[in-house]
């Protein structure tokens, strides 16, 4: 029913189950067509997005809201394949991209979509835009990438944490002793030096992210601001854009 109905569906708590919970790959489904809400964070490594999403999650958890948190590249079904591919360096830009899409599809079909149907607030640390930025930086054709993820629900809010390249790269390089092969973009053969390769790769990714700001309605936040100020901005935006009461049964009862 969602697929046949192009108008936005009113967010009312549902009593009867919808006729179909199956996604129709090939047509992007706005998450507003689901009862639940989807908030995602994006940005380069070191942009501060995971810290901020963690704090947002804590805020919502403490408030008793019904939520689920999901991370990029974490599906148990696909994990062993990804790990082996990375360890043995078997991955090309195409198979790297496909394996991450398989991982995402598994989480999407088994967690994100059912939870959105079931009226949950879903928080995602990285979403399809990570693939668009990173795989395009690896040379995959953008049109092909867009098609690959056409089954993904469109988020209610996409926060894009933007930090200047040097700030983000230095945060990573100072905190972590060793960069992994694919993480550093070594497969692109831009430099033999891992740190230098990482910097070049991140620069390309940043460029790809910036291209999506308007087309994908990113909410851009300044990743160089102090953590608590940034979190305040994030919470204000969430509260203004999402009817949080709907995800807090206790608050509704007390009305």
């Amino acid at each position, binding site marked *: 029913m969602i697929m046949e109905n192009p108008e936005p569906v009113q967010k009312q708590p549902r009593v009867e189950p919808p006729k179909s919970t199956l996604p129709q*790959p090939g047509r992007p489904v706005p998450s507003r067509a689901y009862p639940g809400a989807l908030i995602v964070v994006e940005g380069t490594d070191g942009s501060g997005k995971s810290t901020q999403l963690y704090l947002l999650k804590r805020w919502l958890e403490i408030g008793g809201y019904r939520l689920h948190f999901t991370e990029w590249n974490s599906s148990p079904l696909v994990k062993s394949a990804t790990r082996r*591919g990375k360890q043995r360096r078997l991955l090309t830009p195409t198979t790297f991209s496909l394996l991450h899409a398989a991982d995402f599809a*598994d989480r999407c079909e088994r967690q994100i979509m059912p939870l959105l149907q079931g009226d949950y607030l879903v928080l995602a640390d990285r979403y399809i835009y990570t693939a668009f930025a990173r795989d395009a930086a690896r040379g995959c054709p953008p049109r092909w990438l867009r*098609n690959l993820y056409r089954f993904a629900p469109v988020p209610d809010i996409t926060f894009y944490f933007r930090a200047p390249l040097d700030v983000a790269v230095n945060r990573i390089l100072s905190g972590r002793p060793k960069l992994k092969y694919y993480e550093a973009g070594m497969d692109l053969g831009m430099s033999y030096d891992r740190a230098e390769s990482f910097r070049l790769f991140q620069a390309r990714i940043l460029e790809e992210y910036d291209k999506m700001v308007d087309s994908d309605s990113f909410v851009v936040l300044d990743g160089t601001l102090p953590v608590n100020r940034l979190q305040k901005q994030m919470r204000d935006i969430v509260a203004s854009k999402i009817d949080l009461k709907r995800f807090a049964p206790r608050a509704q009862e007390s009305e």
Partner: protein
Amino acid sequence: MPDQEKEKNAAATQSPDGQPAPSAPAKAAAVAEETPAQYFFGEPLVGFDPSEITGSLIVIEGMDGSGRSTQIALLQEWLESEGFAVQTSGLRRSNLVGRDIDELLAKNAVTRLTLALMYATDFFDQIEHRILPALRSGTVVLADRFIFTLIARGVVRGINRDYMSGLYAMALRPHLTFWLNVRPETAFGREFKKAQAISYWEAGRDMSLSHDLYWSFVRYQTMIKREFEVMAKRHNFIELDGEASVSAVNKQLRQRIAEQLGIRATKYTPSAALAHLWR
């Protein structure tokens, strides 16, 4: 491949399709003028130069029980006896995820999109690590199934057709695509004979078509077959009657392949090792 044949007739020097003959300069000129559409279904594959292809990609499609693997074994022997190097490929044979897919299928916990994408990963890993290196070295690649089976399986499970073909936009276009067409009823008998059973996936049991295994198999394979009929026209399949005898089907395959590769004699009798296949 028909498109390429047309091109060849139009300008004989521009033959791009791995015929043994063309000289290097003619080829380089051809590459500059050609569109990726000649080598790929849509988008070009990242980091790959089509001018390097000197081999031929020959695809045999058809449902379970259509006789694909028998024919491929025989063709490989024939081509090797004619002095051609042969490489084979097939679904779930990649080093990257072949075994992972086996596990997913066994566990039956996987959803249709994830499975479709794992198959795509398996496919492109073989394209990049098995098929392309072989084609670059002038080898004849015999593919036991190709993107068409994978697209059909996705589509009958309700995945959008454009999505599925978009997924394989970067797949190489085969030089020849054969479709061994059989009735599902015949295929059922042949498959049952092989293992005295029909597997869960062969019968499309994940689709809840029927509790009766026979009907589930027939209905599922009929749906797949309908998708093949759609693709047969669009992609110029060479349709062969898979219910004919092994030797009759093999003869037709040899004739078309001989034409493609410029082999004059198409006479062939299997060696003792393969004689049991020759019925």
